[in-house]
């Protein structure tokens, strides 16, 4: 595997392999000294065109725990704001000697375009509304660990609630969850669904109350204030009353149901209970698992030699 751009490029076996690798990384992270030399001498560049302290820190930590050297580029401090084109930025950094770019960009498709201008590995840390593959992987890992689903998600019922249309997390999660065999239901008003979900392996519901008592996983998406301005919902208050996790709805969750959110949460909007009061909240586990998952991804791309032919004589 040379790049991680789109979770749709991975089949169930590949996803399973990355999750198995994550188990190793979880063990490493639990040690008093959570560091291994696997990526020593490799350089990882975090190129974040959109502000995101949490994801950038997660990737930064992941790279350092594998002993890689890390460079951080936040666009506001770089020459990109002075009018340098994306291509020139990539080619300049590549010339300095880089093994991997971790890219977050506001434009869908930017990481894919970047692969044309560098021979380094490219990890998509979120592009526009398109994909967020490492989020999907850490979400899968969290579900796997919390519900004991090491062999796959067959029969698992997952509801993804909220602004699906503008969500790269939703697009990636739908692909990953269904690849592992889960039944996914999208819950949103029609204005927050993509123009067409033809061919998406999902059910659609416009009523959270119809779905909430039956799911094993409730995945809440962030609801942004801007959506009000575009006449997509009348108000955030109405959104919460119809689609928010209110205390009344939380009481109807089954005891084993876990509640997830990609963060950062808009308290009082999509989630109107304190997550600390929700027994099934996995929000903090998601964050913790994020570092381990990203370690697994970086190791797979830069250290595993998986793109090389296996040695016929076996390991020495």
């Amino acid at each position: 595997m040379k790049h991680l751009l789109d979770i749709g490029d991975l089949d169930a076996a590949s996803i399973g392999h990355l999750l198995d690798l994550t188990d190793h990384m979880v063990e490493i992270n639990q040690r008093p000294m959570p560091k291994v030399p696997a990526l020593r001498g490799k350089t990882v560049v975090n190129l974040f065109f959109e502000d995101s302290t949490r994801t950038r820190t997660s990737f930064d930590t992941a790279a350092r725990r594998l002993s890689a050297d890390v460079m951080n580029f936040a666009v506001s401090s770089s020459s990109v704001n002075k009018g340098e084109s994306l291509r020139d930025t990539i080619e300049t950094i590549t010339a300095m000697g880089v093994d991997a770019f971790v890219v977050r960009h506001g434009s869908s498709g930017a990481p894919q375009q970047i692969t044309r201008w560098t021979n380094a590995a490219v990890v998509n840390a979120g592009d526009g509304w398109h994909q967020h593959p490492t989020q999907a992987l850490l979400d899968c890992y969290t579900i796997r660990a919390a519900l004991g689903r090491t062999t796959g998600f067959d029969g698992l019922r997952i509801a993804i609630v909220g602004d699906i249309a503008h969500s790269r997390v939703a697009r990636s999660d739908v692909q990953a969850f269904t690849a592992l065999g889960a039944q996914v239901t999208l819950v949103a008003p029609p204005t927050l669904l993509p123009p067409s979900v033809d061919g998406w392996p999902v059910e659609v519901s416009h009523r959270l109350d119809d779905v909430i008592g039956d799911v094993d996983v409730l995945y809440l998406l962030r609801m942004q204030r801007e959506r009000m301005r575009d006449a997509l919902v009348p108000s955030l208050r109405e959104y919460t009353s119809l689609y928010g996790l209110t205390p009344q709805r939380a009481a109807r969750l089954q005891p084993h149901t876990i509640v997830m959110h990609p963060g950062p949460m808009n308290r009082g909007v999509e989630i109107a209970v304190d997550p600390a009061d929700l027994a099934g909240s996995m929000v903090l586990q998601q964050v913790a698992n994020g570092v381990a998952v990203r370690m697994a991804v970086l190791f797979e791309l830069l250290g595993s030699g998986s793109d090389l032919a296996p040695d016929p004589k076996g390991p020495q």
Partner: protein
Amino acid sequence: MQAEGGRTVMSADDVRRAIIRIGHEIVERNHGTQGVVLVGLQRGGVWIAQQLAEAIARSEGLDTMPIGTLDVSFYRDDVGLRPIVPGSVTTLPGTLDGTHVVLVDDVLFTGRTVRAALDAINDHGRPRSVQLAVIVDRGHRELPIRPDYVGKNLPTSRAENVAVTADGVVLT
């Protein structure tokens, strides 16, 4: 079960006896089992460490021996040069501080896996000593590493392959 064209150099019984003998040698060398931890290297050494632990426990009248497994994938010096597929996750019985760690592997060859294991062990604590037990030493060392306990010294050519299982040792 013999591989096509392979030569059996140790039978199942030979392997079993070697393990029992090595178990006695470990106890003798360490003046008992106090502080001794057997650590099987992924993947070939794990079952051997298990059998060694059972053999020692039987002969010393113990319920169990402290035992762990170690995956060295992230410490190898050929990272990025050849495919690396980690085995099961490392599991160790508590801290290794002050213990006598006996690394257990099936075949000792260039010594690089053991070198990686020494680095990995270091990240889990500071043992009092580290010893090495292998079923087969096939020569061709590339590093100054020597085993403390050997089942059989087996001269081989580099091109040959040595497979160690409970059914025996086969050279192909």
